[in-house]
């Protein structure tokens, strides 16, 4: 990746973060933690990797993304708005009655959302179904999915994993957003998700560790490796920081869903821009 491309991606990610904070603040609260932790992977997929056409969200041959941790909807919406799937002004309708942007990603409501999620564990199964369906159809498109580390406590994640491994779905590239936290506490204090690399390896997946899930070059290298794989699905283990970029939520336990007033949002954005040395 050249430095210009890297700078462009960083700028888009920063802009996405600002939009997500304002989007959640427009409602007054929301799933800020798990939205902020996936910004880089979403930015990379939408701005660099996925074969998509925002003017044709139903294009059958497109690459698809399933946000299995459906509560990251606000991050996905900011990205889709930026890409032109719908007008950016729609972001301020998040969770309002009649909105097309519900807290959890919904394919029947939002242009560009490839599958509905919200009941944890199901999205990864659906992504396996999509990847399998593309194989049956003889379509070369890639299917991407983002699973949470807390979500991986759901047994269904492992049912999906064993099926994808057995069916050799090498065009399925999934990520686990390992931000180390879940609603109640640090994942370590609830049900620890140890050795995910070995778990996926034993389920017949190619596994790639990304030590810093906010680093575009590491994400790029991991996806490149995934695309070399000829027989196995790939799980990219993204080590992230929950609430990364929404500074009031960084490093605290209760950052899954937080109240975010408009005033607080602007303070947080100013602090973020200062830290990142950028402009929104």
């Amino acid at each position, binding site marked *: 990746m050249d430095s210009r491309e890297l700078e462009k991606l960083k700028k888009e990610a920063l802009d996405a973060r600002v939009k997500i904070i304002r989007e959640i603040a427009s409602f007054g609260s929301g799933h800020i933690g798990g939205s902020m932790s996936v910004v880089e992977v979403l930015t990379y997929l939408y701005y660099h990797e996925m074969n998509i056409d925002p003017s044709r969200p139903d294009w*059958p041959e497109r690459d698809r993304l*399933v946000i299995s941790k459906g509560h990251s909807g606000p991050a996905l919406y900011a990205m889709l708005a930026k890409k032109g799937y719908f007008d950016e002004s729609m972001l301020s309708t998040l969770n309002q009655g009649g909105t097309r942007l519900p807290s959890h990603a*919904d*394919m*029947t409501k939002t242009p560009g959302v*490839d*599958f*509905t999620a*919200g*009941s944890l*564990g*199901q*999205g990864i*199964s*659906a*992504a*396996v*179904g*999509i*990847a*399998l*369906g*593309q194989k*049956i*159809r003889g*379509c070369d498109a890639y299917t991407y999915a983002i699973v949470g580390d807390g979500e991986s406590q759901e*047994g*269904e994640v492992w*049912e*999906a994993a*064993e*099926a994808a491994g*057995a*069916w050799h779905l090498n065009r399925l590239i999934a990520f686990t957003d390992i931000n180390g936290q879940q609603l109640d506490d640090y994942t370590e204090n609830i049900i620890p998700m140890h050795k995910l690399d070995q778990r996926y390896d034993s389920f017949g997946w190619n596994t790639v560790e990304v030590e810093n899930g906010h680093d575009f070059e590491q994400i790029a290298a991991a996806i490149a490796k995934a695309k070399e794989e000829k027989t196995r699905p790939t799980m990219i283990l993204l080590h992230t920081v929950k609430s990364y970029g929404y500074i009031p939520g960084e490093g605290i336990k209760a950052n899954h869903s937080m109240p975010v007033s408009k005033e607080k949002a602007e303070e947080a954005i100013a602090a973020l821009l200062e830290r990142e040395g950028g402009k929104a």
Partner: protein
Amino acid sequence: MKDTSVYENYRDAVVGSIIDLAKVHDDIVVLDSDLSSCLGTTEFQKEFPDRFYNCGIAEANMAAVAGGLSSVGLTPFIHSFGCFASRRMYDQVFISIGYAHRTVHIVGTDPGITAQYNGGTHMPFEDIALMRQIPGLIIYEPSDIRSLYELVQQVYATGQSSYLRTPRKGSTRRYGDDVEIRLGKAITVRDGSDLTIIATGVHLVSEAEKAAAALEAKGVSTRVIDLHTIRPLDAETITKAAAETGRLLICENGRYPGGTGEMISALLFKEGISAKVDFINVGERFGEVGSLSYLAETFGMTADNMVKKAEALM
């Protein structure tokens, strides 16, 4: 019209109907959950090896995988025993199929007491109530080989998701080519003016026919309705029967709450039709192991019990 006499039993008719659809429609795929030799989806696999996947003993994943398949333009038929096809994968059916507006056809075999020797763990009595909570989902339970074959064809044509309740074993042939089989339209198997028995599924419709003959001999003119489509409910045929005969005996191989008995009672109340009504169902009991005849006796799903209840209504 398809010659369904080639099918030896219900399982052959279900799979045969899906195979016939798949010959014409290349969107059809079949998923099973380690029960393909039980239903015979292995026959589908032989004909369409690239359109069959065995998901193993992981029903919840199978249902959401089916939702994913549907989102790329494929139409999955997925199979498990009715207990697992309803209770075990309910949230996946609800969210990844129903709420996500996907089209998936669920085949739930061995409904109610037809689970026989697999016993209480395998005996779905509540599947109708569960599936009724999912908006737009068709629920059907045909009572013979021909109607089973035909209704699978018709359900596919609707483009809506569905839940099929069917036994695998047995070969009742109730309807000749002269009887119209239409999804959503109950069949009046026999006419009568004093009382109507509404029954669903092979076993109960057969028992209802026997009961009607016995009642006729006692001077009670008995109508028998085969309610093969549970949802959408054929309100017209039911309200007409209630108004004309004034007495209904509603028989289901399942539980009352959320089942056909409760559904029909609510319909009559809403329409302001007063009729004397009684029910045959499993009540507050769990299932248990046994032969079909033992279980029918235990749960009162017999012609004799129907006659007794009908006489009490007179």
